[in-house]
């Protein structure tokens, strides 16, 4: 007889879906949290352990020079990678398809990923905030706690937003490559728009979208802050405003993720895009890249950013159709995946 061990030790979860999600992806959640905290632990241990000047160092950390600011981009980027990982791992090793054949709703499966991801990110930020607040109190800088709350809130919301956006793309695409690409484009888009607006308006003698702009030009400042990965970060009420935007975005894309996830026919679960219309964005991406390339080669003085962008747009339209034709040809004859029709 083989000895029976009964309920495995440490399996404290009583909900089947949460138990499964944790068992399949627990190494990712734990590793992500550890890697998110690692640079911070290094900064803190260096500051505390350094010879003399500890107070100054700690003040600097709490006051943001070496504190939340640099940590934000790192944690947010890892949040995006975590979302990518939990889908990828579940599809490839976790038996996600098989689990859907049991009495489990699709909604519950996705909600478990959302819940555990947000729990991980929030846990990291709460730990950071509590540590910083404690240090602030310890060094007699209680006044820094207010700005810390705002900074932590903004950072938390931006990280959750990227996690949710990537989950949402993961719920509409069966390919990790396209999910990663879509998330990357989403992160870059505000910075690209910011750069394009700036370059195009240079020609009109205006410098829109610069953080130092004043007057009506300020309507376009901080486009880049719509990206979750920014240089620096907003402060004060602007940070609260952007935190609200990221929170609303997270809710919206979370809702879309559930809708896409629940509506996708099972046979499309490993297709690059569940919705064939999404192929058009892939053609657009290829058209923009190749349009930039063709514009740089063919337009005189294409070194001017404005000319390059306009040229890329002009070339991009026919190139979109060309890429569409090429991709469909390839998918019929050479690629094992591609648009169905």
């Amino acid at each position, binding site marked *: *007889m*083989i*000895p*029976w*061990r*009964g*309920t*495995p030790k440490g*399996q404290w*979860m*009583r*909900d*089947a879906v949460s*138990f*499964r999600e944790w*068992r*399949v992806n627990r190494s990712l959640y734990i590793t992500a949290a550890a890697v998110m905290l690692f640079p911070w632990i290094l900064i803190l241990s260096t500051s505390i352990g350094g010879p003399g000047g500890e107070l100054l160092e700690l003040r600097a950390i709490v006051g943001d020079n070496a504190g939340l600011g640099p940590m934000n981009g790192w944690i947010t980027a890892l949040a995006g990678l975590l979302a990518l990982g939990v889908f990828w791992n579940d599809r490839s*090793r*976790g*038996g996600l*398809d*098989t*689990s*859907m*054949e*049991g*009495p*489990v*709703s*699709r*909604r*519950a499966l996705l909600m478990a990923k959302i819940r555990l991801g947000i729990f991980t990110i929030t846990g990291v930020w709460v730990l950071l905030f509590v540590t910083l607040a404690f240090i602030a109190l310890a060094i007699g800088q209680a006044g820094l706690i207010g700005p810390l709350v705002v900074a932590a809130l903004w950072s938390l919301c931006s990280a959750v937003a990227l996690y949710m956006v990537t989950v949402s793309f993961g719920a509409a695409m069966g390919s990790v490559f396209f999910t990663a690409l879509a998330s990357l484009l989403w992160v870059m888009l505000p910075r690209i728009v910011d750069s394009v607006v700036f370059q195009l308006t240079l020609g009109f003698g205006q410098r829109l979208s610069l953080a130092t702009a004043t007057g009506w030009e300020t309507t376009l400042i901080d486009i880049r802050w719509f990206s979750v990965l920014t240089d620096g970060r907003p402060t004060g009420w602007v940070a609260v405003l952007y935190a609200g935007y990221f929170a609303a975005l997270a809710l919206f894309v979370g809702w879309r993720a559930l809708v896409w996830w*629940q*509506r996708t*026919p*099972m*046979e499309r679960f490993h297709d690059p895009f569940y919705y064939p219309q999404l192929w058009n964005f892939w053609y657009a991406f290829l058209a923009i890249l190749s349009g930039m390339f063709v514009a740089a080669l063919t337009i005189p003085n294409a070194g001017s950013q404005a000319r390059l962008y306009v040229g890329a747009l002009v070339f991009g339209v026919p190139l979109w159709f060309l890429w569409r034709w090429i991709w469909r040809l390839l998918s019929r004859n050479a690629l094992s995946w591609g648009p*169905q*029709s």
Partner: protein
Amino acid sequence: MRPAIEMSDVTKVFGGKMALNHVDWRVDAGSIHGLIGANGAGKTTLLRLALGTLWPDQGRIEVLDQQLGRENADLRQHVHYVATGRSLPPHFRVDEWLHYMGLLYDRWDERRARHLVEAMEISASSIIRSLSTGMQASLQLAGAIAARPALLLLDEPTNGMDVVVKRQVLQLMMDMAAAEGTTMVLATHNIEDVERLADSVSVLYRGRFVLNSSLESLKGHMHRLQVVADGEWSDAVFAQPHIAHVEKRGQVALVTVEGPLEPVAAHFREAGALLVEPIDMDLAEIFRMVLEKEGYSRDTLAWDA
């Protein structure tokens, strides 16, 4: 009898290719139904439609008196699907997987699961990916039996199992059907399994049913006689309406009879046969006769290859 599965006019298309073409199908509650078809005939598609994980492009499906929609998770408390090659979570230990199943299914029988896994000599601490294909299939079946479903959909469930385990598993399924009144659908290439287990049978060919019948009526309808004559047989003797097929080997003829056997046997005795003896006709032969009579080519019978 109440149907466990009822499909009407169901069509399913994958990427422009029609997997099921306006199919009507009924499986009676409490029966064991054999589903036979060549690879690509549409068996797995049919089972996954009944499970509610695939959605039909057209038609209506009712399972356990519930019309299927998009989610169907609640229904799957009572409908269980087992397939060879279906990936169980490879990094789970066996006891973790059973724990998960216990959390998942309302009617989970822990004692039975424990008993079955021990009987199959699967170690509870094994990692699932380290188990052989046959052991993984056995584990799935143990899970299915312990979940005590009202409807069990089995897709080539005994593939990869050795003869002894396969016999044990088939016995377990029969015991379960007898004890719990579980409806079972057994999609397989193995006609022996169907013959041993099933009450009714369907043959699927290129997305359409070409045969749907109870096993009893199928067997009661087709017979074979071995008749031995004193000399050469004359062709006129075989010109009888119930004789479906004749294979002559000198004085001996093998006669396939469709319908009642006794009148045909009496006819041969009157014609002077030295020996008139009914011989067993296996299910594969019966299928072949029925389908060829219906005008389907041997290609239809590729499952028997």
